[in-house]
């Protein structure tokens, strides 16, 4: 199943982008997601919600895309994808490393991948995109 990416911008004191992923995130399309996230940062967004309600599968390459999003929304620019998991190593460990990126409405298979790799500790996870956006606004 191909993956579709929809983006909406929320206007508030802190510009927030909501990226809605539908389908399956794998090695064939994770770079496209990183490009979209990069464009949102360059366009002025300073908070990112990944709405994963329609995402039925995430490969380890998708996890690299999530790391890349965390890095981009820390203002550190896109990672060198040739380095693969090196992008993880490049991020310094600190509390709230991905605080500007929140994941919403995660389905069971994707949640299992995050848990099995320990990445669920890194990303704040909310029950819905609306709650995630409110949390980014500090409401």
């Amino acid at each position, binding site marked *: 199943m191909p993956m579709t990416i929809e983006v909406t911008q929320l206007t508030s004191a802190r510009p927030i982008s909501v990226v809605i992923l539908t389908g399956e995130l794998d090695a064939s399309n994770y770079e496209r997601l990183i490009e979209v996230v990069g464009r949102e940062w360059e366009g002025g967004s300073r908070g990112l919600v990944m709405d994963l309600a329609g995402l039925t599968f995430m490969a*380890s390459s998708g996890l690299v895309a999530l790391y890349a999003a965390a890095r981009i929304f820390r203002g550190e620019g896109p990672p060198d994808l040739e380095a693969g*998991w090196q992008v993880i190593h490049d991020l310094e460990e600190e509390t709230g490393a991905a605080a500007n990126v929140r994941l919403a409405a995660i389905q069971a298979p994707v949640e299992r991948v995050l848990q099995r790799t320990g990445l669920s500790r890194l990303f704040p996870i909310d029950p819905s995109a609306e709650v995630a956006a409110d949390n980014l606004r500090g409401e």
Partner: protein
Amino acid sequence: MSVTGAGSIRIAAESGHLAEVRAFVREASERFGASDAIAADLVQAVDEAVCNVILHGYAGADGEIEVAAELRDRQIEITVLDRSGPFDPTAAAEPDLSVPPLARKPGGMGIHLVRAATDEVHHRVRADGGNELKLVRSLEPRVEEG
């Protein structure tokens, strides 16, 4: 021993074909009576294994990968066959999950997910060249799945 086959699929070694492999594994798992959780685990494991062959086995070179599914008694066996050079993903070191993700050394996440999602992983170099990777998962639910 009872053995039921679900056929096989052959793809070019390109990431654009991974979705076809996942669909094949999902359909075979459902036909064998796997729960949603077990089918999802097998889909994850096979995707990671086939992706490893594409990225590290063939490493950009043209090639083919065959994936076959069988039910042996109450175990689903998925076999991944390729003709890239000898490449044993099970030899990769396990990532240290006790270390926070951001401090962890890179690499090994794909094979870690393969191991986590299956009960057994076996690799052998085929006599006529290439690799055979066998992924085994019981139809019985794990304790954490109730």
